[in-house]
């Protein structure tokens, strides 16, 4: 019996959109071309949403963005319009696919680009874009968004603001910008994708000593997740911290000792996060703007399993190691809910051995022949999820349980350093655009 909507509509008071209409009106999701990634995003990137993709330099964020542009231009029988916003780097045109000449011309007509490298430019641009009556962009990609924000923060710093002020201003400004973006995505049913760098947490200048005090490894066999052990997590989510134990034993009271090197000495741990968070204005209120993001996708490197077997590990030269890429997908909204229920559960029962991690890990790589990213389903290159680390290896991508994709690097004391460790110390510095 659905007489209420009729009654309301008849009297001219209809507002909002019914769920049935919303489902019908929503354009088909934008496929990335990586089937497992699409599956984890509910059949692709959804309209009316903002996504963040971040990762270290050279991992292929821009290439992936271009792949999305190509898919976006081919979607909806070639009716969609796409906008690419450059910030500090021009779009590499050579990477844009060359199709048939006629088809290519049509695509170019529906593809626009604009260069905006200041925060205020972005803000005004989105305010004006909403008012424009031209064809809406179904897909907007902002390449290097985090760098624009970092520059903005630097300007604030140069004005003499203190740390706390800068953090507050950053959060307020991001809320403002994301509000306009959200207005645009909702009214035009479009998708915005931010391509961001990542940064390690040692960069931030705040005294966040507690930030690195209470990380512990989640013993789900993946070696990818850390979670905060701060029971009274009164700071913004993230802020757990220390070294993670990579043994397969469940986290326990002694895990903290292990994290501190077993001798009360603290190891130097750096957490790799989105540069939108891990910048010099990092702080406890970042969650206030993070909720605008539908989903975060962290791109990381991973070693292929055969190169990491213990016998190979010591014999093989660094250059012979094969890498593949991983995308860690997580929903910040559900992540918060899970963290809360975890902490409640912890209240009921002391100690948790296993946590049902719902974040998805997708293995993918760049197909140089086709020039596209695609899932890696080759059985000979299994995903390294149950790999038990050789004792000498101490670096692995990880993910904070609360809201951040991250990668930790543990710096081993000199007296424990081995030959194999020498290359590992600088692992987070990647060559750019190696393909």
């Amino acid at each position, binding site marked *: 019996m659905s007489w209420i909507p009729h009654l309301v509509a008849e009297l001219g008071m209809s507002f909002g959109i019914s769920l*049935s209409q919303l*489902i019908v009106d929503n354009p088909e999701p934008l496929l990335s071309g990586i089937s497992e990634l699409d599956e984890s995003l509910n059949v692709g990137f959804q309209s009316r949403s903002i996504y963040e993709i971040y990762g270290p330099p050279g991992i292929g964020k821009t290439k992936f963005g271009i792949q999305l542009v190509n898919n976006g231009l081919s979607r909806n029988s070639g009716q969609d319009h796409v906008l690419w916003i450059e910030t500090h780097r021009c779009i590499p045109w050579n990477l844009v696919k060359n199709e048939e000449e006629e088809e290519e011309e049509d695509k170019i007509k529906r593809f626009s680009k604009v260069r905006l490298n200041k925060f205020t430019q972005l803000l005004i641009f989105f305010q004006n874009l909403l008012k424009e009556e031209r064809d809406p962009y179904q897909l907007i990609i902002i390449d290097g968004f985090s760098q624009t924000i970092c520059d903005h923060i630097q300007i604030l710093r140069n004005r003499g603001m203190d740390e706390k002020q800068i953090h507050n201003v950053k959060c307020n400004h991001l809320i403002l910008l994301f509000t306009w973006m*959200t207005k645009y995505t*909702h009214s035009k049913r479009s998708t915005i994708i931010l391509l961001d760098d990542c940064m390690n947490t040692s960069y931030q200048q705040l005294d966040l000593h507690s930030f690195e005090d209470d990380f512990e490894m989640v013993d789900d066999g993946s070696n990818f997740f850390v979670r905060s052990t701060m029971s009274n997590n009164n700071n913004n989510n993230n802020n757990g911290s220390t070294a993670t134990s990579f043994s397969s034993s469940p986290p326990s009271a002694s895990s903290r000792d292990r994290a501190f090197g077993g001798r009360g000495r603290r190891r130097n741990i750096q957490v790799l996060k989105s540069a939108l968070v891990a910048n010099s204005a990092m702080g406890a209120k970042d969650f206030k703007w993070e909720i605008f993001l539908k989903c975060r996708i962290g791109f990381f490197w991973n070693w292929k399993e055969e190169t990491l077997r213990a016998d190979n590990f010591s014999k093989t030269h660094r250059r012979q190691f094969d890498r593949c890429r991983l995308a860690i997908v997580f929903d910040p909204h559900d992540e*918060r809910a899970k963290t809360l229920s975890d902490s*409640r559960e912890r209240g009921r029962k002391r100690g948790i051995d296993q946590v049902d991690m719902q974040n998805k890990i997708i293995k993918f790589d760049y197909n140089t022949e086709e020039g596209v990213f695609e899932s890696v389903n080759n059985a000979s290159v299994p995903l390294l999820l149950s790999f038990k680390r050789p004792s000498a290896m101490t670096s692995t991508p990880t993910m904070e349980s609360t809201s951040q994709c991250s990668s930790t690097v543990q710096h081993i004391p000199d007296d424990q350093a081995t030959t194999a460790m020498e290359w590992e110390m600088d692992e987070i510095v990647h060559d750019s655009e190696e393909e």
Partner: protein
Amino acid sequence: MLRPCAEKVSRTYGECDMIEINHWDLITAWVSPKKIDLAKFISSALQDQPSQLYFIDATNSFPIREFQRETPVATNKDVYDNIRIITCLELEELTILVNKIIQTIQLNKIERQKKKSQNNSHHNDIQFFPDLKMRVIINGLEIMFKNTQFKQDSETTHSILRDILLRLRVIANESEGTQMQTLLLFPKDEFKISVPVGDTGRYKRMRSNHNGNSLGEYVCKFYADRVM
């Protein structure tokens, strides 16, 4: 009697697994619900007819995927028609929406009275004129508040917020012909102290600090009947 937020949380601690709409109060705050739980709640809230649900949202957070799993569209078209999704990013917009909801309720009341008089009201009221069950879910109140603060001074913003929450309570208290319940969704991070301390499961009592309460804490402390 007003209870501090932390006590309210601990009172309802452990009940989140069981979502029973009938037990919900006029204004309920739900902290970081899982999408699947929210979908279940919405599904159960719309089982009784006639009912209408307004999902007022500052972000695109309606759990469509989970809801479709929970309530297949093929057999529940009416349920899908009775959910209205509304984007709202400022308190002024929310005020307008709340006013519209009030007007809808008033219209329902008039319609109901009309029907009653036509039928000489010798029928059983409950059977022939069931109450309209109206649910309002508001997600992102803290964003709306912040966005309004950019335009207005703090005092005005607080005044608008208070006005909205009081209106919602007033409508919910008017039970004639309409049963209205409001659910406010907040992220966990809004509640700095309402998480278990250590592994004991106990909650710290809310203490004032020089940073003041967050919006979530303020609303839960003074306006919500229940916090989950």
